[in-house]
């Protein structure tokens, strides 16, 4: 059985039922809070019919003589909590249709069967994410949508969209159109229009996937510069500007006016409660070299401690974003550099060894009372020879020193596919099925650590993914 991820509780038997594609249907239970018209589920029913049976036309079952006892002709869905037209949130109901479709199998003659099975399933962690980087390389819309499909098959539920970075700014802002005009690789072809973004959000919603948008500042912002003159810090060589630029300039009021307006737009475009505000890898050299910043440091009494300047910027930014009613996720530097953040901030742990081993970092973050997301051991862009899915799979997110209360603060993790060496030519085989290992680790029971059992299912699941017209890289 290609069950992936493995359910929390499953009981199968040898008894099997036939399924006839022409008469099989998904149905709503009469007492279900969701009924026909709930587009998320209506669409899902259609999708899974296609995935299971190909485009087979449906005929209502004729009242025949004796119906065959071993035929199953419907899966009845009962949804307890209404929420059909909302966006998925941390407490969303997971889609069991994928599990159902993984249980259906075909005999050599081609008949569809399903074994008598009882499953009770729920995810171990509520935040199970995948990061894509569309700045180092532009990813066509189709690539993003295909990724969302495969995420759904793996029960991932958060798409962390690292939209912009140093290399390019493909996000088309309507308040500041010059950002893409000047900052994208090619404003005619390598951009995401407002329509594109809407499409991604809705496509994700129909699959129970949240879109967590990241606009990383104050570092990783070179591409913002051309479209917003004066935003970035001019670096100095001695007493003259060197011609190069550094992080966002934290010493100017204009900066915060810009961020205010920009994030108002972002808050309205992306419906999720959380925004990712980045905050990683801020290089202080440029700030140090700039005389205006030096003056600002003195005025503020920060001395030589640029972490204080970074904190100042981030705190101001976080306040701006909070005022728009959004929560935020930040990279671990924000925590490491002791920036004052709201208690409901989520800290994403990404650094493997520095400043401490990531398990230690998880301990520190949770003992300070913040929720944590684990990414450090799951940088899928770091490829190596051989079946590295095993190392990915064996990571135990809660393997650190801490109380049960602390461990409860780990809300999940994210597999990251940074884009320096990745675009649509190699994204799919590099992502899958390796990201599947992360998916199971975040969904399934922590006792599930048998690599042989995992290998059997993963290899089979990989072939299923191929059949779903994705392309999974081999597991070996």
């Amino acid at each position, binding site marked *: 059985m290609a069950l992936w991820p493995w359910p929390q509780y499953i009981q199968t038997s040898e008894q099997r039922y036939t399924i006839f594609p022409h008469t099989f249907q998904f149905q709503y239970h009469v007492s279900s809070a969701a009924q026909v018209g709930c587009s998320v589920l209506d669409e899902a029913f259609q999708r899974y019919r296609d995935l299971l049976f190909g485009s087979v036309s449906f005929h209502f079952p004729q009242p025949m003589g004796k119906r065959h006892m071993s035929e199953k002709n419907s899966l009845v869905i009962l949804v307890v909590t209404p929420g059909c037209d909302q966006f998925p949130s941390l407490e969303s109901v997971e889609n069991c249709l994928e599990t159902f479709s993984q249980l259906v199998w075909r005999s050599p003659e081609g008949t569809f069967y399903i074994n008598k099975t009882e499953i009770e399933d729920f995810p171990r962690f509520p935040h199970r994410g995948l990061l894509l980087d569309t700045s*180092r*390389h*532009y990813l*066509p819309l*189709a690539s993003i949508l295909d990724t969302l499909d495969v995420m759904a098959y793996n029960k991932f539920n958060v798409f962390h969209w690292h939209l912009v970075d*140093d*290399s*390019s700014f493909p996000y088309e802002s309507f308040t500041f159109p010059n950002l893409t005009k000047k900052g994208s*690789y*090619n404003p005619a*072809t*390598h951009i995401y229009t407002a329509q594109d973004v809407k499409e991604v959000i809705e496509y994700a919603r129909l699959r129970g996937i949240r879109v967590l948008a990241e606009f990383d500042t104050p570092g990783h912002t*070179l591409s913002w510069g051309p479209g917003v003159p004066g935003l970035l810090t001019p670096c100095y060589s001695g007493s003259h500007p060197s*011609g*190069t630029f550094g992080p966002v300039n934290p010493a100017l009021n204009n900066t915060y006016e810009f961020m205010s307006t920009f994030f108002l737009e972002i808050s309205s475009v992306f419906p999720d409660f959380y925004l990712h505000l980045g905050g990683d890898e801020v290089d202080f050299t440029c700030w140090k070299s700039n005389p205006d910043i030096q003056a600002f440091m003195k005025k503020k009494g920060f001395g030589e401690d640029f972490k204080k300047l970074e904190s100042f910027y981030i705190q101001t930014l976080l306040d701006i974003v909070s005022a728009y009613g959004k929560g935020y996720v930040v990279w671990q530097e924000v925590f490491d550099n002791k920036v004052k953040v709201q208690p409901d901030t989520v800290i994403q742990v990404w650094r493997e060894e520095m400043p401490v081993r990531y398990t230690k970092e998880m301990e520190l973050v949770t003992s300070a009372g913040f929720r944590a997301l684990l990414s450090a051991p799951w940088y899928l*862009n*770091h*490829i*190596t*020879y*051989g*079946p590295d899915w095993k190392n990915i799979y064996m990571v135990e997110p809660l393997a650190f020193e801490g109380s049960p209360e602390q461990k409860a603060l780990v809300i999940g993790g994210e597999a990251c596919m940074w*884009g*320096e*060496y*990745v*675009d*649509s*030519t*190699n994204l*799919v*085989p*590099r992502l899958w099925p390796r990201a599947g290992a992360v998916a199971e680790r975040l969904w399934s029971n922590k006792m599930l650590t048998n690599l042989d059992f995992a290998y059997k299912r993963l290899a089979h699941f990989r072939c299923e993914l*191929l059949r779903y017209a994705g*392309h*999974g*890289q*081999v597991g*070996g």
Partner: protein
Amino acid sequence: MEHRGLGWPRLPRLLELLAALAVQAVRASAIAAASPDLSLWPMPLSVQTTPRVLHLSPDNFFFGHSSTSKAGPSCSLLQEAFRRYYDYIFGFYKWHHGSADLRVGVELQQLQVSVVLDPECDTFPKISSDESYTLLVKGPVASLTANRVWGVLRGLETFSQLIYQDFYGTFTVNESNIVDSPRFPHRGILIDTSRHFLSIKSIFKTLDAMAFNKFNVLHWHIVDDPSFPYQSITFPGLSEKGSYSSSHVYTPNDVRMVIEYARLRGIRIVPEFDSPGHTQSWGAGQKDLLTPCYNGKDPSGAFGPINPIWNTTYSFLSKFFKEISTVFPDEFIHLGGDEVDFDCWASNPEIQDFMRDKGFGRNFKKLESFYMQVVLDMISAINKSSIVWQEVFDDASKLTPGTVIQVWKVEDYTREQSKVTEAGFPVILSAPWYLDWISYGQDWKKYYAVDPLSFEGSQEQKKLVIGGEACLWGEYVDATNLTPRLWPRASAVGERLWSHKDVRGLEDAYRRLTIHRCRMLRRGIAAEPVFTGYCDHEDRM
């Protein structure tokens, strides 16, 4: 515009030109600032360009045969190439019909091809084939001259790389004079269709990409332990029982198509039927071929390498290789001979007896050599030559002179090159070029930096290095990831094997490789990125 990944500040045009010149090699002349989009890969032996430009119109331009050429329209290899290269040059823009009035400037109307010697049009390429050419690009008729059709194919590729579109979309080429020939005659890619089956389509794609990079040998490691996809006419049971499934098979027709597809691109197909090890899948369809392993006095049920002591083994192999020699036209057959595990042989009492009778003692390398020598003689007897992995040399088999040794073990490979060439055997280098060993980052640089002749040896010895092969073993590779894993990393090997030894500058290579990668993308090869950046025509794929 291709790549802006490095974030360098832009140099003014003149400085850029001087920088480009400074970076260029001593013998290979610099490409004067023809265009920052210009990228030749691999870098030809000698390139001279001028700033004078010519324009081409898709409606007017054509490839033709010169009146003195020894080849003409009856040479279908060239006709097919003309069609292909017209498409590569103008392909996506074919539908810009209507004659745009050419701006001021000279038009390039024709590339006239001239084959000087007997073209070899309807023959198969060989290790000794002449791939040299000269390309004189001037208006209105440019000329491509070569001794044989193989040089024409290489020249057409270079010609297609010279053409770019200016700001207005006009097809432009600079007046140039190129003289080119490869540094090494054997420039190969190894694919493994046993660990994972590769569809014919993906093999064709690979051959296309090889032509864009001037590779000329496809080393087809067609069978191995896991599966036997080669459908043999003499022994149909081999694939019937040994392939993954009946749809994971290469029929005789499939094989013919691959050979011809390759031939039209000047690429040799060198098949490898690896033995005596790596043969588990042979045992499924051929009873009494593999050695039964023993647990004490009883057979354990497992099987090992091919059994080297039975006469039936050799009569089978004789018939089998006779078929191979007729199916595959290349002069060379690769016999493998690597990684023979001696444990099973050692456990087998019949073999123990044989070893004693032969006076081999406990030295199973002698048994391996005994086997390899018989097979090598078999190949000679049917008028073919052999290539083998280095173990066959290392384990002291008596080798026919002219047997080519493929050096693949990474540890101390330069010393191996010295030893093999000192003993007088030709060498194919693969050790530093195992592309299946992926790692994070720009590993193309380390493939590019390899110097195939950096071993201790005389000039004569160095001449024995006939080239190299980039190997893409199939444990973790199938059609879902073959192309991005091979390209453009293999391109680095391609230039190392074609271009002059002084073409080593990494900065210029980076610039040209990123453009070359975008070009491959345009031509339908899903080559992965070199680094951060973009191509103009990404979603053409």
